[in-house]
């Protein structure tokens, strides 16, 4: 380390003010000219390297929902009135009251791209991420589900991806002690270069234990809990590490996040113990956007400021620079807001479970401008910005939309034109072909790798239409959940396709004897910059919102995954819909299948 290049100089707020004209790699970080200009306007100067990293992350499609947000008004406007919803869209996960004392939290999320790069770790950390979302609401995670989509069952790459994904879900979920109570495995060539790994988690909490992400209380301490921070997944942001931006390409290769379910289990137990002792004022999980997201969202939610001494963050690699610490996607971490008087107790609980807990900052005043997020690195200020500008004021786009040109073409190919089995032999043949097809055949070889029994409350799991979990042993109250989605239907008609997915999940929950009350969704689509994909997306959202209004159940949260495509070819639009229902007494659940000889078989509906 003899040559002094730009990377050795700490880019502080002072330096940024003094060098307004320094060229910055905003385009490489995915920011448009007008977005960069807006950041400069917000700050009244050029952003520091750390700030640029933070804005590029928070204003990305993944975090800002810049393409999808305008369409979500359908959910808000059409949402049926209910007094069951304790937390909804905008929170880490929806929370629904089940009885006067008990609530559940549930949400489905995607981890599609990481799972293609490294199937095992990608899927494992997908489970880890959704579990922390549920934990952040104050709930004990009690079950998971895994709606999956792969390419052709006979393609060699499916041989790599599928066992890896299933192995990762199995390892992580089993190690956390979460029964897997359902999911989907669908094969279709459209997912060959872009498999879908969606993960759902269900949690249960006493209504009184509901947590908030708001970093309220001036003087309260900001505590980082869990794993050390390393250079995990800081992909695009590493272009900042190079002196000349062209040099960045090699180091820009993201480092794969490796999941540590053991640490996550300890994180769960320590957080729950802290909630029960009322030690936590606010809490937020660290997900894809790491500290950047957790710091800005917690501060913005409280409309206060925050001061962080970033060098206090425990690091796996000492050489990390501040923007890397802020952007790191290291797993198994939570951010807590704690009253100073409770800090020792928080440390004691963390210590009991063998989890690292470190005070890294404090909540500061709002001032005239709603508070500042100030991040220091060894005493030098590297970030000074309004937290709301990161968390809430990201760009919002009304992307152009166009009905796909091939819709008429696809529609011409009607099912009626397919050959039909005519003779009993042909009928038999067709039935056997169907039973043997990868999408319909027995899935035990996968589901056997998942624990169904742990915690002893699984009432129904695979191969039932919906998973059923007892949530209260004394009263027998339980919930049923099913996830469904059909990309082929949605490709033909995204509006109806989304509704069919909703209807199927709704029926699946209904047939267990449960009363459906809430919806979560994971919307898997191609590039939002493709007007035809955007049209599919808008139609699916409208269809889902209308369907929910019709059925009288609200969408409580979910996730959007865009850019699911190989080259220019998008996957089938794949809205995955999860429906949750309540059973007042799980002893009265119904399972599928014929039970008694001589029972009458009836067909309901048309």
């Amino acid at each position, binding site marked *: 380390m003899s040559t002094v290049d730009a990377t050795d100089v700490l880019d502080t707020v002072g330096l940024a003010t003094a060098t307004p004209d320094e060229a910055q790699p905003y385009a490489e970080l995915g920011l448009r000219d007008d977005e960069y200009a807006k950041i400069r306007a917000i700050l009244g100067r050029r952003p520091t390297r750390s700030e640029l990293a933070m804005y590029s992350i928070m204003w990305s499609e993944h975090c800002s929902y810049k393409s999808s947000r305008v369409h979500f008004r359908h959910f808000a406007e059409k949402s049926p009135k209910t007094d069951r919803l304790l937390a909804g869209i905008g929170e880490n996960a929806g929370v629904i009251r089940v009885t006067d004392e008990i609530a559940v939290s549930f949400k489905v999320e995607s981890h599609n791209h990481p799972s293609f790069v490294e199937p095992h770790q990608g899927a494992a950390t997908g489970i880890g991420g959704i579990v922390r979302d549920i934990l952040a609401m104050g709930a004990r995670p009690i079950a998971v589900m895994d709606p999956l989509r792969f390419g052709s069952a006979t393609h060699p790459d499916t041989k790599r991806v599928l066992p890896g994904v299933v192995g990762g879900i*199995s*390892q992580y979920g*089993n*190690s*956390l*002690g979460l029964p897997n109570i359902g999911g989907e495995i669908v094969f279709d060539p459209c997912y060959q270069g872009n498999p879908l790994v969606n993960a759902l988690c269900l949690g249960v909490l006493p209504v009184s234990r509901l947590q908030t992400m708001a970093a309220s209380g001036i003087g309260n301490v900001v505590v980082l809990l869990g794993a050390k921070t390393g250079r995990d997944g800081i992909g695009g942001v590493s272009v900042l590490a190079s002196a000349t931006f062209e040099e960045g390409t090699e180091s820009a290769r993201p480092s794969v996040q490796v999941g*540590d*379910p*053991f*640490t996550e*289990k*300890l994180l769960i137990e320590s957080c729950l113990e802290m909630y029960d002792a009322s030690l936590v004022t606010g809490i937020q999980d660290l997900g894809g956007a790491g500290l950047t997201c957790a710091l800005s969202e917690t501060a913005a939610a409280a409309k206060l400021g925050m001061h962080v001494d970033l060098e206090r963050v425990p690091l796996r690699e000492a050489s990390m620079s501040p923007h890397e610490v802020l952007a790191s996607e290291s797993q198994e971490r939570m951010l807590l807001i704690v009253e100073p008087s409770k800090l020792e107790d928080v440390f004691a609980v963390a210590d009991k*479970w*063998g989890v690292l807990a470190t005070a890294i900052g404090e909540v500061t005043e709002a001032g005239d401008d709603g508070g500042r997020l100030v991040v220091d690195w060894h005493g030098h200020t590297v970030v000074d910005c309004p937290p709301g500008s990161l968390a809430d004021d990201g760009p919002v786009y009304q992307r152009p939309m166009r009905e796909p040109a091939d819709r008429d073409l696809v529609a011409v190919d009607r099912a009626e034109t397919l050959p039909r089995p005519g003779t009993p032999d042909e009928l038999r043949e067709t039935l056997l072909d169907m039973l043997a097809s990868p999408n319909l055949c027995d899935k035990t070889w996968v589901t*056997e*790798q*998942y*624990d*169904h*029994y*742990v*915690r*002893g*409350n*699984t*009432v129904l799991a695979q191969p039932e239409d919906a998973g059923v979990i*007892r949530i209260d*042993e004394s009263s027998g109250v339980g919930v049923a959940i099913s996830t469904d989605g059909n990309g082929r239907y949605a490709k033909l008609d995204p509006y109806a396709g989304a509704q069919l997915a909703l209807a199927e999940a709704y029926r699946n929950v209904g047939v267990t004897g449960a009363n459906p009350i809430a919806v979560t969704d994971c919307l898997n689509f191609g590039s939002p910059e493709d007007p035809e994909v955007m049209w599919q997306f808008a139609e699916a959202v409208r269809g889902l919102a209308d369907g929910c209004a019709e059925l009288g159940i609200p969408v409580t949260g979910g996730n959007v995954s865009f850019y699911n495509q190989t080259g220019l070819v998008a996957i089938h639009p794949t809205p995955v819909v999860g429906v949750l229902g309540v059973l007042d007494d*799980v*002893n009265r659940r119904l399972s599928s299948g014929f039970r008694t000889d001589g029972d009458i078989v009836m067909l309901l509906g048309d």
Partner: protein
Amino acid sequence: MSARVGVVTFPGSLDDVDAARAIRLAGATPVSLWHDDSALRGVNAVVLPGGFSYGDYLRCGAIARFSAVMETVADAASAGLPVLGICNGFQILCESHLLPGALTRNRHMHFRNRPQAMRVENVDTAWTADFTAEQRVVVPVKNGEGCYVADEKTLDTLEAENRVVFRYVDGNPNGSQRDIAGVTNAAGNVVGLMPHPEHAVEALTGPSTDGLGVFTSVLAHLGATTR
């Protein structure tokens, strides 16, 4: 006063809640024990539950063996305290050399979870007295490293001394030698098995209620020894 049965929680234990429920349903009082605390809190028996203690890192049960509580458990076990190790608990007992043999990676290399039939081969242990000889029971098996191995001499000794307590029937789920699902020490107070009796205690949630017998057995055993 009903018997007090301790359930140890290690970092990464998962089935401790299930074991406690099973103990309750069998009519005893579950008492939680903490890995880092050597106190046994006056319990009459101990269950080492399933799970992934210390993430199952390095080798299942290898790190848990060095916990404070295991020292006391080992001493108490040699003095006759009934100790049951289920799945990860069985692995810990083997790593601690309280039971012979070792649990290795399943032959098919997958985690496998299914209802599993076994035969109760020895009804004279502290944990099997309530079963009838050769009784067939069905309880869930769920593990990735449940393949029981030991050298031939050890296996022969186990057979000769009737220390194979449970044997898989209708298929061996993990490749265990001689279809061994569970074994006991020479005194019959320490038993380890891979399948999960604590997951078969309620008709609503288990494949059967056969597992309850393990927990009622120890109560019968304790009743007989304290009388």
